[in-house]
């Protein structure tokens, strides 16, 4: 195990399943024998507000929150939210972006404009960039609600954790009847993303 820790920042909009996906990620890391900490702020953020979750793992983790400019992987569920956290990324960080937009209120009201071509902006600064059509993939297996787990599957390709640790984590978090569909979603992301 390397001495330095890995820092993942998961961001998006309340209701996108970020908290659940982060929970599974954290369990998988624990299953794989890492020390791991996860920090999130819930409360107000549930009502469609912007959400962020810090996940840190390695040999020994102290702070539950990531230092500015120390994010190794930005795991973004929504375009605008990905931009919002630019300042936290390490130079050379990897960005996994769900190709999805949710308008904030000022945009719906016609006051602000949604920023144009976000994937391009990100790619220019962070060439290690992966754009994923989470919803399309989720619809392939017939359940739009599994988009978060498809995305987690994509992320899993870049983390040194065996597949069975992931499967155990998914099985722990979901109720019996949702386990299989989510394992399917995870595998799809891991294969195609």
């Amino acid at each position, binding site marked *: 195990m390397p001495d330095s820790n890995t820092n993942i920042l998961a961001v998006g909009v309340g209701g996108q399943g970020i908290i659940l996906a982060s929970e599974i990620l*954290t369990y998988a890391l624990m299953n794989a024998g890492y020390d791991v900490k*996860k920090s999130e702020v819930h409360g107000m953020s549930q009502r469609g507000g912007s959400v962020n979750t810090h996940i840190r793992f390695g040999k020994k983790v*102290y*702070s539950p929150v990531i230092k500015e400019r120390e994010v190794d992987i930005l795991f973004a569920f929504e375009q605008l939210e990905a931009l919002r956290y630019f300042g936290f990324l390490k130079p050379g960080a990897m960005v996994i972006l769900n190709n999805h937009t949710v308008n904030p*209120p000022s945009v719906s009201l016609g006051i602000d404009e949604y920023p144009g071509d976000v994937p391009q902006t990100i790619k220019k600064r962070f060439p290690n960039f992966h754009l994923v059509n989470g919803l399309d993939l989720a619809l392939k297996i017939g359940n739009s609600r599994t988009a978060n787990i498809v995305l987690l599957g994509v992320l899993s390709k870049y983390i040194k954790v065996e597949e069975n640790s992931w499967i155990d984590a998914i099985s722990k978090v979901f109720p019996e009847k949702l386990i299989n569909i989510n394992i399917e979603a995870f595998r799809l992301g891991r294969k195609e993303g």
Partner: protein
Amino acid sequence: MKELLSGNEAIARGAYECGVTVATGYPGTPSTEILENIVKYEGVYAEWSPNEKVALDVAAGASFGGARVLVAMKHVGINVAADPLFTLSYTGVKGGLVIITADDPELHSSQNEQDNRNYAKFAKIPMLEPSDSQEAKEFVKIAFEISEKYDTPVFLRTTTRISHSKSIVEIHEPKRSPISLELVKNPAKLVMLPANARKRHPIVEERLRQLKTFADEFSENKVEINNANFGIITSGVSYQYAKEVFPDYSYLKLGLIYPLPEKLIKEFAGKVKKLYVVEELDPYIEEQIKAMGIKIAGKDIFPICGEFNPSIVENAISPSSKQHMKEEVSLKLPPRPPNMCPGCGYRGIFYVFNKLKLFVAGDIGCYTLGFLPPLSAIDTCVSMGGSIGHAMGLDKALGDEAIGKVIAVIGDSTFLHSGITSLLDIVYNRGSSTVVILDNQTTAMTGRQEHPGTGLTLKGETAKKVDLIELCKGLGVEHVRTVDPFDLTSVEETVKEEIFRKEPSVIISQAPCVLLKSQRVKPSKPFMVFNEKCNGCKACIKLGCPAIEWKNIKDVSKTDKLTSDNKKRKGIAIIDSMLCNGCGLCQQLCKFEAIGEINA
């Protein structure tokens, strides 16, 4: 066995492992999950009390009977419970009594960021502060031992980053409490009238002296001597931040933050060259250390406001290290504040308040989001239950000037928490305010907890449900009416009638929270905009519904610049059918019959 637990889950587990049989509290971020988890353990009675003072009173009673009791609340909850708190310091306990205060530096979801460590000193009650979930669990057990050994309530203080961070915890089997349950009369200790209480005060002072000695020997006040040039005194999550950026400095990590270990601090100070105290919010530890005559750096280099993170700690102690300035993306990004859900029963009420240009004395709950544009209809928000008093005060101060202009709005859980007595004040003192109670059948803001008006307990058992109408009538309010908040005309008429009435009145808005999972809510069919009829007037946009968006005509493909009856338009409204839950408010506002049910 290892488990991944949040600080809150770990506290619940710790309580279970050391034989807690009674747990009370009132919801409040970031403390809520403690009771939600403890109730799942067998053999624990746990309740949502109507408010924090009641929670502490019930806890005190259970402790007097010999039970180990846990009480949990957010930082401002302690203000509500402060009255019994200070005197319980005098009575002491029989079964251990541990009070969790969950502070919220940075005000992630609170009305202030008060530092409740001050309560420990103020009420002369010992306080522990864990720095991760493992400690949270262990410190609960230690807290019970201290409580029983020193005959005192004990605080366990968390902050949001401890409550809501998950880390790995070693799980153990539960043990029974060592204290026996029995009814024992002990007036000298439990009846705090002056003659008795006067005798208890010196006992409190003696207890503090003993606790100070204990603090110097307490194994969770830990010294780590590394690089002797720099020493950091800290506790809680601040320890983790400091350790992250300065792993080889020397540390005195305090597990017990009241009373402080004076001897240990002096020894540590003697072993290092330059001394820092790293603590969020007030200079609480700093001032006490300075009073010991020790030179230490603290709030001269650290902020008082907001929470810390590793970068803040690093920059304060060695500003030269690396200037981590948060880089702003060149374009300014639109903010994404939380919003009322699509189909929320509150939207219509606040739409009407806005339309009537009322001064809205507000309260705390999801409805505080009515503050945001375009509804912009909350004008005060100070404390739970405050709204009703604000309206009364405004009426009394302004007299006729306020008639027809002021209204109070309060949620059902908040009304039952601390609104009842204020309504009584309006009745008693010849007020004439109108109070709108938003009855959504849950405590929505904190994640949908039961309360005395929902008909269920924390455990999920059926319970007697308070009748809000009869309650208000019983207080002496003669004009109590109900409205369906999805009927805008009726809401507007009812509000207009009541605000001009020169007597107290209550309007109860009845609509369950749309997030309630039970059969209580069935979403209707989603609505849609009939593209050709919409003339882009933005009337529906004034609802601030997340499902409705206004788009410039040039950004909408295959859409004519003219409506079907040849009117010019700049844009059109679009309803997202995935988000819409068919409440129908927007349809009521559309003058062009451009909104209707899908497949209608």
